């Protein structure tokens, strides 16, 4: 009996408090503050209402709701099947897999950078750069024709942008369709195969603990994430339109 009592004092449950009043009063205060802010905000700023919907009058630019503008921005670099369907599905599935792929037992229930650097870098990169930064860009810097405009620039609907993009195989001097298709396939496939092999080689010690399937899924998701950035850099820096052109899809 005495032991049981002692154990209780030492365990994590030692420092427990009643929810009423300690938590409920915090929630109550928090709710009141939020409601005041929301009410004042709603009195001061009106929700937008433009002219009635008109299917014959397409606005330029047409923008999706702001929270999807990151995806809409990726449309510049990828075809809709990827930017609009596959990428969002991968985001959802990838997020769900996080607890099953990250087997690092440290950093459970407290803030730490030192004990899980890679995980934090990957998440911050995905969330802050690929999601938030692209949204900010989509909201403020994308004007008519989805062209880039600096905040001080006039949104000129007739802005002329030279279309000098070529496909990657073309840039390497490949001129026939089939050869280009094989070349592109090799580049994309090679990227994934090589990336996977390098990762497995570098992390070969972890294989026993983490398991093959986990490591395989992890590196595929990571390669896709990095691949999106690679494609953006290829487009912006080297005017590459597609890496791999096939009769069915282009990447």
């Amino acid at each position: 009996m005495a032991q049981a009592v002692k154990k209780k004092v030492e365990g994590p449950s030692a420092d427990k408090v009643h929810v009423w009043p300690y938590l409920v009063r915090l929630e109550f205060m928090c709710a009141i503050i939020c409601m005041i802010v929301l009410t004042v905000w709603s009195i001061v700023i009106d929700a937008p209402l433009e002219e009635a919907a008109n299917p014959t009058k397409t606005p330029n630019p047409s923008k999706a709701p702001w929270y999807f503008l990151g995806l809409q921005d990726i449309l510049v670099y990828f075809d809709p099947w990827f930017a609009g369907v596959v990428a969002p599905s991968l985001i959802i599935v990838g997020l769900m897999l996080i607890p099953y792929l990250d087997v690092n037992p440290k950093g459970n229930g407290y803030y730490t950078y030192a004990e899980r650097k890679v995980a934090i870098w990957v998440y911050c990169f995905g969330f802050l750069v690929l999601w938030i930064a692209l949204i900010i860009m989509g909201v403020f810097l994308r004007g008519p024709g989805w062209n880039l405009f600096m905040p001080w620039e006039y949104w000129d609907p007739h802005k002329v942008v030279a279309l000098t993009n070529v496909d990657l195989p073309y840039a390497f001097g490949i001129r026939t369709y089939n050869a280009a298709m094989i070349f592109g396939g090799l580049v994309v496939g090679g990227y994934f195969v090589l990336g996977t092999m390098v990762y497995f080689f570098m992390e070969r010690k972890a294989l026993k603990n983490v398991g093959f399937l986990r490591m395989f899924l992890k590196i595929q998701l990571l390669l896709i994430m990095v691949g999106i950035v690679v494609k953006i850099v290829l487009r912006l820096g080297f005017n590459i339109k597609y890496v791999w052109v096939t009769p069915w899809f282009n990447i």
Partner: protein
Amino acid sequence: MDQIKSGKIFSELAKTVTESQVWTSSFRHGYADTPRNRVLQIASNVWLHLHPVKIQRHALRIKFTWCMGGITFLMFLVTVVTGVVLMFYYRPVGEYAYYDMKYLQYDVPFGMLMRNMHRWAAHSMVITVWLHMFRVFLTGSYKPPREFNWVIGVFLVTFTLLLSFTGYLLPWDQLSMWAVTVGTNMARATPFLGHEGPFAEFVGVSPRYDARSVLLGGSLVGPPALLRFYVLHCIFIPLVAGALMIVHFWRIRKDGGISGPL
């Protein structure tokens, strides 16, 4: 007279009221600050009993949770209440929808305020749910035993975005119609199921019969799409999201409360 002067009448009155059958049947315990009442306050209240009776002290720290899950839920509740008010005035019909919005804004008492609160709460909810998720990631709270609740959470963030997106169409103005056009155009490119997507030719979908037309009830964002989005927005998605939230809260308790350093 004496009783009134000494104020004793008030305690008499209070006693009569709090001992009446109506009162005792409504309020099942006293209010005095005793440990027993603190427990009953939570355990015997249908709303508050989503909480455990006791929690660890660190779970109170706003620095730990940023209060973001709670604020997300509050924003959801605000949209439910204001949304029901808006539903009294709004008809999801091509001819009426836009003019009902005008009516709400200019003629309905507090109509504009209700609309504003609904919209800003919805947008806030999108932001706070992202921040909540970010916090849960940073504290590693998805790690065992909370993996499953993280998965529920990913469903919740998806449904939050879908709620917001389906609502975006309802004002039926240029902004909403074209935003939804841009958004749903993506469904055209669904592999296999969209008529412009990869491998569509092997499935035989057409503009009138593919993933997008199922979503819109037609080949463009027209009145059938408005009705579909309305039903999804007001009935289907809130019910699913609400159910998931209940599971989410339940699991927080079953997983041992808010995560913390062991």
